[in-house]
């Protein structure tokens, strides 16, 4: 059976590429028996979905916006 580290990297590749039949079998077999890798995959899938919605609601301060205008506006001609 492949190790957890190898399973993690194969799982990563599987998200984007078609694995060989042997690689797919090795990964699936590992996942059936490894509770930690199943848990890791579940958590990572959730993190990936969350990352797509990340929003920080950061803003320029009024002072920063003033500085920005001072540097950019003269270029408008």
């Amino acid at each position, binding site marked *: 059976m492949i*190790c*957890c*580290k*190898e399973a*993690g*990297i194969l799982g*990563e*590749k599987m998200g*984007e*590429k078609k694995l060989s039949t042997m690689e797919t079998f090795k990964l699936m077999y590992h996942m059936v028996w490894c509770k*930690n*890798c199943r*848990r*890791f995959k579940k*958590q*990572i899938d*959730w*993190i*990936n979905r*969350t*990352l*797509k*919605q*990340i*929003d*920080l*609601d*950061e*803003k*320029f301060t009024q002072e*920063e*916006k003033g500085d*920005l*205008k001072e*540097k*950019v506006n003269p*270029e*408008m001609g």
Partner: protein
Amino acid sequence: MAKHQLHPEQWIDVFSDLLLNYALIRIKEREIAKDLVQETFLTAIRTKEQYRGEISEMNWLFLILKSRILDHYKKKKEVLESQLKGADDDEDSDDFFNSTGHWSKNGAPNEWTTDKMVRSAEFMHVLNECKNRLNEVQNAVFTMKYIDGEDSEMICKELNISSSNYWVLVHRAKLKLRECLEKNWMT
């Protein structure tokens, strides 16, 4: 279809915060993110003759910023290369796996309770903070892959990374990000 038009005099008031948000999700330092937004406006003004009105001015500004961010990653090439040299000596993943490559006692993932798996504003900041703790190369690769949705081929080409290094890098970044969230949010 009506073509879009540019209104440069409104850009800072209308788009600067949106662009700053976009940059801060992709760049660790606020000062650099601010500079990239400024460069975006200056580039847009200098190249406005090339704007054909086929996309909205907001999308056009975002495209310019995206290209500035990629240039920033490339300028950091020396840092990236020195970190890539260390990509083969499995130091990072030694913390998670034992000598046989299976999860170590302390590195194995713990169960996360569903009440903590919420996408609140507070959580988003913790998530971004954890992402910012990744090293430069992990952060660049991870951002391009999982936030911008670029494919591995494009990322390897732009950042001059080998395919084998790429998969190891992304996996390590995930190990570290997951661990950071577990320590700082889930417990």
